[in-house]
Protein backbone atom coordinates (compact mmCIF):
# COMPACT_ATOMS: atom_id res chain seq x y z
CA UNK A 1 0.00 0.00 0.00
CA UNK A 2 1.45 3.34 -1.00
CA UNK A 3 0.97 6.54 -2.95
CA UNK A 4 3.57 6.03 -5.62
CA UNK A 5 5.24 7.75 -8.57
CA UNK A 6 7.12 5.28 -10.78
CA UNK A 7 9.69 6.54 -13.31
CA UNK A 8 7.73 9.73 -14.00
CA UNK A 9 8.95 12.44 -16.33
CA UNK A 10 7.20 15.68 -17.23
CA UNK A 11 8.12 17.87 -20.15
CA UNK A 12 6.91 21.31 -21.22
CA UNK A 13 7.92 21.48 -24.87
CA UNK A 14 11.47 20.12 -24.83
CA UNK A 15 12.25 21.27 -21.33
CA UNK A 16 12.18 18.53 -18.70
CA UNK A 17 10.62 19.63 -15.41
CA UNK A 18 11.26 16.24 -13.80
CA UNK A 19 13.12 13.27 -15.27
CA UNK A 20 12.54 9.64 -14.43
CA UNK A 21 11.73 10.08 -10.74
CA UNK A 22 10.34 7.32 -8.53
CA UNK A 23 9.17 8.18 -5.04
CA UNK A 24 6.42 7.11 -2.71
CA UNK A 25 4.75 7.76 0.57
CA UNK A 26 3.54 4.82 2.65
CA UNK A 27 1.00 4.68 5.46
CA UNK A 28 2.61 5.68 8.74
CA UNK A 29 5.60 7.27 7.04
CA UNK A 30 6.49 10.99 6.95
CA UNK A 31 8.40 11.63 3.73
CA UNK A 32 9.95 14.95 2.75
CA UNK A 33 10.98 16.29 -0.65
CA UNK A 34 13.99 18.60 -0.45
CA UNK A 35 15.83 20.50 -3.13
CA UNK A 36 16.86 23.94 -4.35
CA UNK A 37 14.43 26.28 -6.17
CA UNK A 38 13.54 24.94 -9.61
CA UNK A 39 14.51 21.36 -8.74
CA UNK A 40 11.03 20.10 -9.64
CA UNK A 41 9.55 19.69 -6.14
CA UNK A 42 6.22 21.39 -6.87
CA UNK A 43 6.00 19.63 -10.24
CA UNK A 44 6.33 16.30 -8.41
CA UNK A 45 3.47 17.27 -6.11
CA UNK A 46 1.28 18.32 -9.07
CA UNK A 47 1.99 14.99 -10.74
CA UNK A 48 1.04 13.10 -7.60
CA UNK A 49 -2.09 15.23 -7.15
CA UNK A 50 -3.19 14.48 -10.71
CA UNK A 51 -3.12 18.17 -11.75
CA UNK A 52 -0.41 17.42 -14.31
CA UNK A 53 -0.24 14.31 -16.47
CA UNK A 54 3.22 12.71 -16.62
CA UNK A 55 4.83 12.54 -20.08
CA UNK A 56 5.96 9.06 -19.11
CA UNK A 57 5.77 6.88 -16.01
CA UNK A 58 2.81 6.19 -13.72
CA UNK A 59 1.18 7.52 -10.58
CA UNK A 60 -0.68 4.99 -8.46
CA UNK A 61 -2.74 5.14 -5.29
CA UNK A 62 -2.70 1.87 -3.34
CA UNK A 63 -1.59 -0.07 -6.43
CA UNK A 64 -4.33 1.37 -8.66
CA UNK A 65 -3.49 3.87 -11.42
CA UNK A 66 -4.63 7.33 -10.25
CA UNK A 67 -6.44 7.93 -13.56
CA UNK A 68 -8.66 4.91 -12.87
CA UNK A 69 -9.95 6.30 -9.57
CA UNK A 70 -12.91 8.71 -9.69
CA UNK A 71 -12.53 12.29 -8.46
CA UNK A 72 -14.72 11.81 -5.40
CA UNK A 73 -12.97 8.60 -4.41
CA UNK A 74 -9.54 10.23 -4.75
CA UNK A 75 -10.70 13.15 -2.66
CA UNK A 76 -11.66 10.83 0.19
CA UNK A 77 -8.24 9.20 0.22
CA UNK A 78 -5.78 12.01 -0.34
CA UNK A 79 -5.73 15.73 0.34
CA UNK A 80 -3.38 18.46 -0.82
CA UNK A 81 -2.46 21.56 1.15
CA UNK A 82 -1.74 24.35 -1.37
CA UNK A 83 1.17 26.69 -0.90
CA UNK A 84 -1.02 29.77 -0.81
CA UNK A 85 -4.69 30.49 -1.25
CA UNK A 86 -6.60 33.30 -2.93
CA UNK A 87 -10.11 33.34 -1.52
CA UNK A 88 -11.49 36.84 -2.00
CA UNK A 89 -15.09 36.12 -1.07
CA UNK A 90 -16.42 36.52 2.44
CA UNK A 91 -16.49 33.00 3.81
CA UNK A 92 -15.82 32.45 7.49
CA UNK A 93 -12.87 30.25 8.40
CA UNK A 94 -15.40 27.64 9.57
CA UNK A 95 -17.05 27.61 6.11
CA UNK A 96 -13.62 26.94 4.58
CA UNK A 97 -12.93 24.02 6.91
CA UNK A 98 -16.44 22.68 6.24
CA UNK A 99 -15.68 22.60 2.51
CA UNK A 100 -13.24 19.81 3.32
CA UNK A 101 -16.27 17.56 3.91
CA UNK A 102 -17.61 18.18 0.39
CA UNK A 103 -16.61 14.77 -1.04
CA UNK A 104 -18.39 12.91 1.76
CA UNK A 105 -21.92 13.91 0.89
CA UNK A 106 -23.13 13.95 4.48
CA UNK A 107 -25.52 16.05 6.57
CA UNK A 108 -24.03 18.83 8.76
CA UNK A 109 -24.84 16.82 11.90
CA UNK A 110 -22.22 14.27 10.78
CA UNK A 111 -19.65 16.91 9.77
CA UNK A 112 -19.87 18.92 12.98
CA UNK A 113 -18.18 16.51 15.45
CA UNK A 114 -15.42 15.74 12.91
CA UNK A 115 -14.73 19.44 12.46
CA UNK A 116 -14.74 19.98 16.19
CA UNK A 117 -12.02 17.39 16.66
CA UNK A 118 -9.87 18.83 13.87
CA UNK A 119 -10.29 22.43 14.99
CA UNK A 120 -9.14 21.41 18.45
CA UNK A 121 -6.17 19.48 17.06
CA UNK A 122 -5.03 22.42 14.91
CA UNK A 123 -5.78 24.97 17.67
CA UNK A 124 -7.80 27.16 15.31
CA UNK A 125 -10.93 27.64 17.49
CA UNK A 126 -10.38 31.38 17.85
CA UNK A 127 -10.22 31.86 14.05
CA UNK A 128 -13.45 30.05 13.16
CA UNK A 129 -15.87 32.99 13.39
CA UNK A 130 -13.62 35.35 11.45
CA UNK A 131 -13.81 36.18 7.74
CA UNK A 132 -11.22 34.06 5.93
CA UNK A 133 -10.14 36.93 3.66
CA UNK A 134 -9.19 39.10 6.65
CA UNK A 135 -6.83 36.52 8.20
CA UNK A 136 -3.05 36.81 8.01
CA UNK A 137 -1.11 34.55 5.63
CA UNK A 138 -0.12 32.21 8.46
CA UNK A 139 -3.64 32.00 9.88
CA UNK A 140 -5.00 31.22 6.41
CA UNK A 141 -2.44 28.44 6.09
CA UNK A 142 -3.55 26.91 9.39
CA UNK A 143 -7.24 27.09 8.41
CA UNK A 144 -6.42 25.44 5.07
CA UNK A 145 -4.50 22.75 6.96
CA UNK A 146 -7.62 22.11 9.05
CA UNK A 147 -9.65 21.90 5.81
CA UNK A 148 -7.43 19.25 4.23
CA UNK A 149 -7.46 17.23 7.45
CA UNK A 150 -11.28 17.41 7.47
CA UNK A 151 -11.26 16.09 3.91
CA UNK A 152 -9.52 12.77 4.67
CA UNK A 153 -10.31 12.36 8.36
CA UNK A 154 -10.85 8.64 9.08
CA UNK A 155 -14.42 7.80 10.13
CA UNK A 156 -16.46 4.61 10.27
CA UNK A 157 -17.64 5.32 6.74
CA UNK A 158 -14.23 6.26 5.46
CA UNK A 159 -11.61 3.71 6.41
CA UNK A 160 -8.53 2.69 4.47
CA UNK A 161 -5.23 4.43 3.90
CA UNK A 162 -5.07 8.21 3.87
CA UNK A 163 -2.44 10.35 2.23
CA UNK A 164 -1.61 13.96 2.92
CA UNK A 165 0.47 16.06 0.49
CA UNK A 166 1.81 19.32 1.90
CA UNK A 167 3.30 21.97 -0.41
CA UNK A 168 5.69 24.02 1.76
CA UNK A 169 3.31 23.89 4.74
CA UNK A 170 5.57 26.02 6.93
CA UNK A 171 6.34 28.83 4.47
CA UNK A 172 3.92 31.41 5.91
CA UNK A 173 4.15 30.40 9.56
CA UNK A 174 6.00 31.81 12.56
CA UNK A 175 8.48 29.43 14.30
CA UNK A 176 5.95 28.23 16.88
CA UNK A 177 3.35 27.17 14.31
CA UNK A 178 6.01 25.75 11.98
CA UNK A 179 6.86 23.27 14.71
CA UNK A 180 3.20 22.80 15.52
CA UNK A 181 2.21 21.83 11.97
CA UNK A 182 5.19 19.47 11.67
CA UNK A 183 4.34 17.87 15.03
CA UNK A 184 0.75 17.32 13.91
CA UNK A 185 1.96 15.84 10.61
CA UNK A 186 4.34 13.56 12.51
CA UNK A 187 1.50 12.57 14.89
CA UNK A 188 -0.84 11.85 11.95
CA UNK A 189 1.75 9.47 10.50
CA UNK A 190 2.45 7.76 13.83
CA UNK A 191 -0.99 7.59 15.40
CA UNK A 192 -3.43 7.77 12.51
CA UNK A 193 -1.29 5.89 10.02
CA UNK A 194 -1.44 8.67 7.41
CA UNK A 195 1.11 8.65 4.62
CA UNK A 196 2.49 12.22 4.71
CA UNK A 197 4.58 13.79 1.97
CA UNK A 198 5.77 17.36 2.46
CA UNK A 199 7.94 19.78 0.52
CA UNK A 200 10.22 21.56 2.97
CA UNK A 201 13.12 23.99 2.70
CA UNK A 202 14.50 23.74 6.23
CA UNK A 203 17.05 20.92 6.36
CA UNK A 204 16.93 20.71 10.15
CA UNK A 205 13.14 20.31 10.15
CA UNK A 206 13.55 17.47 7.67
CA UNK A 207 16.27 15.99 9.86
CA UNK A 208 14.07 16.13 12.98
CA UNK A 209 10.69 15.05 11.60
CA UNK A 210 11.12 12.99 8.43
CA UNK A 211 11.42 9.21 8.15
CA UNK A 212 12.47 9.42 4.55
CA UNK A 213 13.84 12.26 2.41
CA UNK A 214 14.01 12.63 -1.37
CA UNK A 215 16.63 15.04 -2.65
CA UNK A 216 15.79 16.60 -6.00
CA UNK A 217 18.29 18.49 -8.12
CA UNK A 218 17.65 19.87 -11.63
CA UNK A 219 14.59 17.67 -12.11
CA UNK A 220 16.32 14.44 -11.09
CA UNK A 221 16.34 12.39 -7.94
CA UNK A 222 19.80 12.94 -6.44
CA UNK A 223 19.55 10.75 -3.35
CA UNK A 224 16.91 9.26 -1.09
CA UNK A 225 16.82 7.54 2.27
CA UNK A 226 16.57 8.32 6.00
CA UNK A 227 17.64 11.95 6.65
CA UNK A 228 20.55 10.92 8.85
CA UNK A 229 22.11 8.97 6.00
CA UNK A 230 21.30 11.32 3.17
CA UNK A 231 21.96 14.78 4.60
CA UNK A 232 25.74 14.75 4.88
CA UNK A 233 28.13 17.62 4.19
CA UNK A 234 29.13 16.44 0.71
CA UNK A 235 25.56 15.90 -0.48
CA UNK A 236 24.43 19.28 0.82
CA UNK A 237 27.35 20.91 -1.01
CA UNK A 238 26.53 19.09 -4.25
CA UNK A 239 22.80 19.82 -4.15
CA UNK A 240 22.62 23.36 -2.71
CA UNK A 241 26.19 24.58 -3.16
CA UNK A 242 26.61 25.58 0.48
CA UNK A 243 29.23 24.53 3.02
CA UNK A 244 27.88 23.19 6.28
CA UNK A 245 28.97 21.68 9.51
CA UNK A 246 26.97 19.05 11.34
CA UNK A 247 26.84 19.58 15.10
CA UNK A 248 25.39 17.29 17.76
CA UNK A 249 22.86 18.37 20.37
CA UNK A 250 24.19 17.79 23.86
CA UNK A 251 20.92 16.26 25.05
CA UNK A 252 20.45 13.40 22.61
CA UNK A 253 23.31 13.74 20.14
CA UNK A 254 20.82 14.35 17.32
CA UNK A 255 22.38 16.16 14.34
CA UNK A 256 21.97 19.90 13.61
CA UNK A 257 23.05 21.33 10.27
CA UNK A 258 24.73 24.74 10.41
CA UNK A 259 25.93 26.73 7.42
CA UNK A 260 29.56 27.82 7.57
CA UNK A 261 30.87 30.93 5.86
Amino acid at each position, binding site marked *: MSYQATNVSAYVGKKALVKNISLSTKPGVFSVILGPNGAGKSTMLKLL*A*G*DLKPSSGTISLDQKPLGGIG*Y*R*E*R*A*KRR*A*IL*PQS*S*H*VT*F*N*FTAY*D*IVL*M*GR*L*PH*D*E*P*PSVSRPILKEIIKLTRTEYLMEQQFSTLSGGEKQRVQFARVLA*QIWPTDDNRGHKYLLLDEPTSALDPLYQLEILKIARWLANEKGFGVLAILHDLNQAMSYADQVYLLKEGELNRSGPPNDVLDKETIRTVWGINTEILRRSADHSPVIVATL
Partner: protein
Amino acid sequence: MINENAVKQVQFEKPGLLMILTICLVLTVLVNITIGSYGLSIGKILSILGAQAGLTLPWGYAPHEEGILLSIRMPRVVLGIFVGAALGISGAVLQALFRNPLAEPGLIGVSGGAALFAVAYIVFGFGFASGFMLPITAFAGGVCATVLIYLLSRNTVGDKVASMLLIGIAINAISMAGIGLFQFVSDDTQLRLLTFWMMGGFGSATWQGIMPSLLLVVVGLASLWRCAVPLNAYLLGIAEAGHLGVDTKKLTRIIILSVALIVGASVAVSGIISFVGLIVPHIVRQFSGPDHRLVIPASALLGAIVTLVADLAARTVVMPAELPIGLVCSAVGGPFFLWLLLSKNRGRA
Protein backbone atom coordinates in the same frame (compact mmCIF):
# COMPACT_ATOMS: atom_id res chain seq x y z
CA MET B 1 -19.64 15.03 -8.60
CA ILE B 2 -22.79 17.00 -8.11
CA ASN B 3 -23.78 16.41 -4.64
CA GLU B 4 -27.54 16.22 -4.31
CA ASN B 5 -27.70 15.66 -0.59
CA ALA B 6 -25.45 18.61 0.04
CA VAL B 7 -27.93 20.76 -1.84
CA LYS B 8 -30.86 19.33 0.09
CA GLN B 9 -29.17 19.78 3.42
CA VAL B 10 -28.92 23.52 2.88
CA GLN B 11 -29.31 25.42 6.07
CA PHE B 12 -29.89 28.96 4.95
CA GLU B 13 -28.47 31.39 7.39
CA LYS B 14 -30.38 34.17 5.69
CA PRO B 15 -33.75 32.71 4.72
CA GLY B 16 -35.11 36.24 5.09
CA LEU B 17 -33.45 37.34 1.87
CA LEU B 18 -35.29 34.77 -0.26
CA MET B 19 -38.55 35.59 1.53
CA ILE B 20 -38.18 39.33 0.90
CA LEU B 21 -37.27 38.75 -2.74
CA THR B 22 -40.27 36.46 -3.21
CA ILE B 23 -42.62 39.07 -1.74
CA CYS B 24 -41.05 41.75 -3.96
CA LEU B 25 -41.53 39.52 -6.99
CA VAL B 26 -45.22 38.95 -6.20
CA LEU B 27 -45.74 42.71 -5.77
CA THR B 28 -43.89 43.45 -9.02
CA VAL B 29 -46.03 40.91 -10.85
CA LEU B 30 -49.21 42.54 -9.47
CA VAL B 31 -48.07 46.00 -10.50
CA ASN B 32 -47.09 44.71 -13.94
CA ILE B 33 -50.46 43.15 -14.67
CA THR B 34 -52.41 46.10 -13.25
CA ILE B 35 -50.68 49.00 -14.98
CA GLY B 36 -50.59 49.50 -18.73
CA SER B 37 -52.24 51.40 -21.57
CA TYR B 38 -55.43 49.86 -20.24
CA GLY B 39 -55.65 49.82 -16.42
CA LEU B 40 -57.01 46.74 -14.65
CA SER B 41 -58.00 46.92 -10.98
CA ILE B 42 -56.82 44.29 -8.50
CA GLY B 43 -60.46 43.29 -7.96
CA LYS B 44 -60.99 42.61 -11.65
CA ILE B 45 -57.79 40.61 -11.81
CA LEU B 46 -58.85 38.49 -8.84
CA SER B 47 -62.28 37.90 -10.38
CA ILE B 48 -60.83 36.86 -13.73
CA LEU B 49 -58.31 34.52 -12.13
CA GLY B 50 -61.01 33.20 -9.76
CA ALA B 51 -63.28 32.46 -12.71
CA GLN B 52 -60.50 30.38 -14.24
CA ALA B 53 -60.45 28.30 -11.06
CA GLY B 54 -64.27 28.03 -11.02
CA LEU B 55 -64.86 30.63 -8.28
CA THR B 56 -67.24 33.54 -8.54
CA LEU B 57 -65.91 36.72 -6.96
CA PRO B 58 -67.90 39.94 -6.48
CA TRP B 59 -65.90 42.22 -8.82
CA GLY B 60 -67.37 42.38 -12.31
CA TYR B 61 -65.33 42.56 -15.51
CA ALA B 62 -65.86 42.85 -19.25
CA PRO B 63 -64.88 40.00 -21.66
CA HIS B 64 -62.23 42.14 -23.35
CA GLU B 65 -60.62 42.73 -19.92
CA GLU B 66 -60.32 39.00 -19.49
CA GLY B 67 -58.61 38.87 -22.88
CA ILE B 68 -56.14 41.60 -21.94
CA LEU B 69 -55.20 39.86 -18.71
CA LEU B 70 -55.02 36.25 -19.84
CA SER B 71 -53.71 36.63 -23.38
CA ILE B 72 -51.59 39.78 -23.22
CA ARG B 73 -50.46 40.69 -19.71
CA MET B 74 -50.02 37.21 -18.24
CA PRO B 75 -47.82 35.63 -20.93
CA ARG B 76 -45.75 38.79 -20.97
CA VAL B 77 -45.20 38.70 -17.21
CA VAL B 78 -44.48 34.97 -17.18
CA LEU B 79 -41.94 35.41 -19.98
CA GLY B 80 -40.34 38.29 -18.07
CA ILE B 81 -40.00 36.14 -14.95
CA PHE B 82 -38.36 33.26 -16.83
CA VAL B 83 -36.03 35.41 -18.91
CA GLY B 84 -34.98 37.45 -15.87
CA ALA B 85 -34.37 34.34 -13.78
CA ALA B 86 -32.37 32.76 -16.62
CA LEU B 87 -30.18 35.85 -17.02
CA GLY B 88 -29.65 36.28 -13.25
CA ILE B 89 -28.65 32.65 -12.66
CA SER B 90 -26.46 32.56 -15.77
CA GLY B 91 -24.52 35.59 -14.58
CA ALA B 92 -24.08 34.12 -11.10
CA VAL B 93 -22.77 30.73 -12.25
CA LEU B 94 -20.53 32.16 -14.99
CA GLN B 95 -18.93 34.64 -12.59
CA ALA B 96 -18.12 31.72 -10.28
CA LEU B 97 -16.93 29.41 -13.06
CA PHE B 98 -14.63 32.00 -14.63
CA ARG B 99 -13.67 33.37 -11.20
CA ASN B 100 -14.24 36.75 -12.79
CA PRO B 101 -16.77 39.32 -11.57
CA LEU B 102 -17.22 40.72 -15.08
CA ALA B 103 -18.42 37.46 -16.62
CA GLU B 104 -21.93 37.56 -18.08
CA PRO B 105 -23.92 35.39 -20.52
CA GLY B 106 -22.81 37.42 -23.56
CA LEU B 107 -19.20 36.34 -22.98
CA ILE B 108 -19.76 32.75 -24.03
CA GLY B 109 -21.04 33.92 -27.39
CA VAL B 110 -24.68 33.00 -26.98
CA SER B 111 -26.12 36.50 -27.56
CA GLY B 112 -23.78 37.31 -30.43
CA GLY B 113 -24.40 34.00 -32.15
CA ALA B 114 -28.17 34.29 -31.72
CA ALA B 115 -28.15 37.83 -33.07
CA LEU B 116 -26.03 36.87 -36.09
CA PHE B 117 -28.36 34.02 -37.05
CA ALA B 118 -31.47 36.12 -36.41
CA VAL B 119 -30.16 38.98 -38.52
CA ALA B 120 -29.18 36.58 -41.30
CA TYR B 121 -32.69 35.13 -41.20
CA ILE B 122 -34.32 38.55 -41.39
CA VAL B 123 -32.11 39.77 -44.23
CA PHE B 124 -32.31 36.63 -46.32
CA GLY B 125 -36.04 37.02 -45.80
CA PHE B 126 -37.23 33.47 -45.65
CA GLY B 127 -40.66 35.00 -45.19
CA PHE B 128 -41.85 36.65 -41.97
CA ALA B 129 -45.02 34.60 -42.14
CA SER B 130 -43.75 31.86 -39.88
CA GLY B 131 -43.51 33.33 -36.37
CA PHE B 132 -41.64 30.32 -35.07
CA MET B 133 -38.73 30.37 -37.49
CA LEU B 134 -37.02 33.51 -36.16
CA PRO B 135 -36.76 32.29 -32.53
CA ILE B 136 -35.67 28.82 -33.63
CA THR B 137 -32.95 30.28 -35.85
CA ALA B 138 -31.78 32.59 -33.06
CA PHE B 139 -31.70 29.74 -30.55
CA ALA B 140 -29.66 27.60 -32.95
CA GLY B 141 -27.21 30.46 -33.49
CA GLY B 142 -26.70 31.01 -29.77
CA VAL B 143 -26.08 27.35 -29.01
CA CYS B 144 -23.80 26.92 -32.06
CA ALA B 145 -21.60 29.86 -31.06
CA THR B 146 -21.23 28.58 -27.49
CA VAL B 147 -20.46 25.03 -28.55
CA LEU B 148 -17.89 26.39 -31.01
CA ILE B 149 -16.19 28.40 -28.25
CA TYR B 150 -16.23 25.40 -25.93
CA LEU B 151 -14.74 23.05 -28.54
CA LEU B 152 -12.03 25.52 -29.58
CA SER B 153 -11.01 26.13 -25.97
CA ARG B 154 -10.44 22.40 -25.45
CA ASN B 155 -7.58 22.52 -27.98
CA THR B 156 -5.67 25.24 -26.15
CA VAL B 157 -2.70 24.76 -23.85
CA GLY B 158 -2.92 25.80 -20.21
CA ASP B 159 -5.89 27.34 -18.39
CA LYS B 160 -8.86 26.24 -20.53
CA VAL B 161 -11.39 28.42 -18.72
CA ALA B 162 -9.32 31.57 -19.27
CA SER B 163 -8.85 30.59 -22.93
CA MET B 164 -12.61 30.27 -23.24
CA LEU B 165 -13.02 33.92 -22.20
CA LEU B 166 -10.54 35.05 -24.87
CA ILE B 167 -12.01 32.81 -27.58
CA GLY B 168 -15.44 34.17 -26.61
CA ILE B 169 -14.21 37.70 -27.25
CA ALA B 170 -12.90 36.66 -30.67
CA ILE B 171 -16.12 34.84 -31.66
CA ASN B 172 -18.20 37.80 -30.46
CA ALA B 173 -16.11 40.15 -32.61
CA ILE B 174 -16.66 37.90 -35.62
CA SER B 175 -20.42 37.78 -34.91
CA MET B 176 -20.55 41.56 -34.64
CA ALA B 177 -18.72 41.91 -37.96
CA GLY B 178 -21.24 39.55 -39.55
CA ILE B 179 -24.16 41.50 -38.06
CA GLY B 180 -22.66 44.75 -39.36
CA LEU B 181 -22.35 43.27 -42.81
CA PHE B 182 -26.00 42.15 -42.83
CA GLN B 183 -27.11 45.56 -41.58
CA PHE B 184 -25.17 47.13 -44.44
CA VAL B 185 -26.89 45.06 -47.11
CA SER B 186 -30.41 45.14 -45.57
CA ASP B 187 -33.22 47.35 -46.82
CA ASP B 188 -35.11 49.85 -44.63
CA THR B 189 -37.83 47.48 -43.41
CA GLN B 190 -35.35 44.75 -42.57
CA LEU B 191 -33.04 47.20 -40.81
CA ARG B 192 -35.86 48.46 -38.62
CA LEU B 193 -36.97 44.93 -37.75
CA LEU B 194 -33.50 43.72 -36.85
CA THR B 195 -32.70 46.84 -34.85
CA PHE B 196 -35.80 46.27 -32.74
CA TRP B 197 -35.09 42.58 -32.38
CA MET B 198 -31.57 43.30 -31.14
CA MET B 199 -32.77 45.79 -28.54
CA GLY B 200 -35.10 43.21 -27.09
CA GLY B 201 -38.70 43.18 -25.89
CA PHE B 202 -41.54 41.05 -24.58
CA GLY B 203 -44.20 42.78 -26.68
CA SER B 204 -44.96 39.82 -28.92
CA ALA B 205 -45.33 37.26 -26.11
CA THR B 206 -48.14 34.73 -26.59
CA TRP B 207 -48.61 31.49 -24.66
CA GLN B 208 -47.97 29.48 -27.81
CA GLY B 209 -44.86 31.44 -28.71
CA ILE B 210 -43.18 31.33 -25.31
CA MET B 211 -43.98 27.76 -24.24
CA PRO B 212 -40.99 26.02 -25.93
CA SER B 213 -38.61 28.59 -24.42
CA LEU B 214 -40.14 28.22 -20.96
CA LEU B 215 -39.61 24.46 -21.09
CA LEU B 216 -35.96 24.84 -22.11
CA VAL B 217 -35.38 27.41 -19.37
CA VAL B 218 -36.86 25.07 -16.74
CA VAL B 219 -34.56 22.21 -17.84
CA GLY B 220 -31.47 24.45 -17.78
CA LEU B 221 -32.32 26.05 -14.44
CA ALA B 222 -32.79 22.64 -12.83
CA SER B 223 -29.30 21.54 -13.86
CA LEU B 224 -27.64 24.83 -12.80
CA TRP B 225 -29.37 24.74 -9.42
CA ARG B 226 -27.44 21.58 -8.56
CA CYS B 227 -24.06 23.17 -9.31
CA ALA B 228 -24.19 25.38 -6.20
CA VAL B 229 -22.03 23.27 -3.88
CA PRO B 230 -19.26 22.45 -6.38
CA LEU B 231 -19.20 26.15 -7.33
CA ASN B 232 -18.54 27.03 -3.69
CA ALA B 233 -15.45 24.81 -3.89
CA TYR B 234 -14.42 26.80 -7.01
CA LEU B 235 -14.04 29.86 -4.81
CA LEU B 236 -11.03 28.10 -3.23
CA GLY B 237 -9.41 27.80 -6.66
CA ILE B 238 -9.89 25.47 -9.63
CA ALA B 239 -7.11 23.05 -8.61
CA GLU B 240 -8.44 22.99 -5.03
CA ALA B 241 -11.95 22.21 -6.27
CA GLY B 242 -10.49 19.30 -8.24
CA HIS B 243 -8.66 18.03 -5.15
CA LEU B 244 -11.98 18.16 -3.28
CA GLY B 245 -13.47 15.71 -5.74
CA VAL B 246 -15.19 18.10 -8.17
CA ASP B 247 -14.87 16.90 -11.76
CA THR B 248 -14.02 20.37 -13.03
CA LYS B 249 -14.20 19.49 -16.73
CA LYS B 250 -17.65 17.99 -16.36
CA LEU B 251 -18.85 20.92 -14.26
CA THR B 252 -17.58 23.38 -16.89
CA ARG B 253 -19.39 21.45 -19.61
CA ILE B 254 -22.67 21.30 -17.68
CA ILE B 255 -22.61 25.00 -16.86
CA ILE B 256 -21.62 26.22 -20.33
CA LEU B 257 -24.23 24.10 -22.08
CA SER B 258 -27.01 24.87 -19.59
CA VAL B 259 -26.34 28.59 -19.83
CA ALA B 260 -26.31 28.38 -23.63
CA LEU B 261 -29.64 26.56 -23.45
CA ILE B 262 -31.46 28.98 -21.16
CA VAL B 263 -29.97 32.20 -22.51
CA GLY B 264 -30.41 30.96 -26.07
CA ALA B 265 -34.05 30.18 -25.34
CA SER B 266 -34.49 33.62 -23.75
CA VAL B 267 -32.78 35.58 -26.50
CA ALA B 268 -34.80 33.69 -29.09
CA VAL B 269 -38.13 35.07 -27.84
CA SER B 270 -37.10 38.38 -26.27
CA GLY B 271 -34.00 39.61 -28.13
CA ILE B 272 -30.82 40.74 -26.40
CA ILE B 273 -31.28 42.07 -22.87
CA SER B 274 -27.94 43.18 -21.54
CA PHE B 275 -26.70 44.05 -18.04
CA VAL B 276 -29.23 41.96 -16.07
CA GLY B 277 -26.87 38.96 -16.02
CA LEU B 278 -23.92 41.13 -15.06
CA ILE B 279 -25.44 43.30 -12.34
CA VAL B 280 -27.97 41.09 -10.56
CA PRO B 281 -25.43 38.65 -9.00
CA HIS B 282 -23.36 41.62 -7.79
CA ILE B 283 -26.32 43.14 -5.97
CA VAL B 284 -27.31 39.74 -4.55
CA ARG B 285 -23.84 39.05 -3.13
CA GLN B 286 -23.90 42.34 -1.23
CA PHE B 287 -26.71 40.88 0.86
CA SER B 288 -26.29 37.12 0.63
CA GLY B 289 -22.54 36.58 0.96
CA PRO B 290 -20.72 34.19 -1.37
CA ASP B 291 -22.57 30.88 -0.74
CA HIS B 292 -24.01 29.78 -4.08
CA ARG B 293 -26.82 27.85 -2.39
CA LEU B 294 -28.18 31.30 -1.62
CA VAL B 295 -26.66 33.33 -4.49
CA ILE B 296 -28.26 31.14 -7.19
CA PRO B 297 -31.91 31.24 -6.06
CA ALA B 298 -31.61 34.89 -5.01
CA SER B 299 -30.15 35.83 -8.42
CA ALA B 300 -33.07 34.08 -10.10
CA LEU B 301 -35.60 36.05 -8.02
CA LEU B 302 -33.86 39.40 -8.36
CA GLY B 303 -33.26 38.81 -12.08
CA ALA B 304 -37.00 38.30 -12.52
CA ILE B 305 -37.82 41.42 -10.48
CA VAL B 306 -35.36 43.65 -12.32
CA THR B 307 -36.55 42.40 -15.71
CA LEU B 308 -40.21 42.98 -14.84
CA VAL B 309 -39.48 46.50 -13.56
CA ALA B 310 -37.54 47.25 -16.74
CA ASP B 311 -40.42 45.92 -18.83
CA LEU B 312 -42.90 48.03 -16.87
CA ALA B 313 -40.78 51.10 -17.56
CA ALA B 314 -40.38 50.10 -21.21
CA ARG B 315 -44.14 49.97 -21.81
CA THR B 316 -45.28 52.89 -19.62
CA VAL B 317 -42.69 55.67 -19.99
CA VAL B 318 -43.75 56.62 -23.53
CA MET B 319 -47.28 55.11 -23.36
CA PRO B 320 -49.00 54.03 -25.57
CA ALA B 321 -45.77 53.43 -27.52
CA GLU B 322 -43.12 51.04 -26.17
CA LEU B 323 -39.39 51.36 -25.63
CA PRO B 324 -37.22 48.29 -26.29
CA ILE B 325 -36.45 46.67 -22.91
CA GLY B 326 -32.80 46.16 -23.84
CA LEU B 327 -32.49 49.93 -24.21
CA VAL B 328 -34.06 50.50 -20.77
CA CYS B 329 -31.73 47.97 -19.14
CA SER B 330 -28.60 49.47 -20.65
CA ALA B 331 -29.68 53.05 -19.97
CA VAL B 332 -30.40 52.36 -16.29
CA GLY B 333 -27.98 49.46 -15.76
CA GLY B 334 -24.84 51.22 -16.98
CA PRO B 335 -24.98 54.20 -14.61
CA PHE B 336 -26.19 51.96 -11.77
CA PHE B 337 -23.24 49.61 -12.22
CA LEU B 338 -20.85 52.57 -12.22
CA TRP B 339 -22.37 53.81 -8.99
CA LEU B 340 -22.07 50.33 -7.47
CA LEU B 341 -18.38 50.09 -8.37
CA LEU B 342 -17.50 53.58 -7.18
CA SER B 343 -19.39 53.37 -3.88
CA LYS B 344 -17.75 49.99 -3.18
CA ASN B 345 -14.28 51.42 -3.77
CA ARG B 346 -14.99 54.38 -1.54
CA GLY B 347 -15.93 51.98 1.24
CA ARG B 348 -12.65 50.15 0.85
CA ALA B 349 -10.42 53.24 0.91
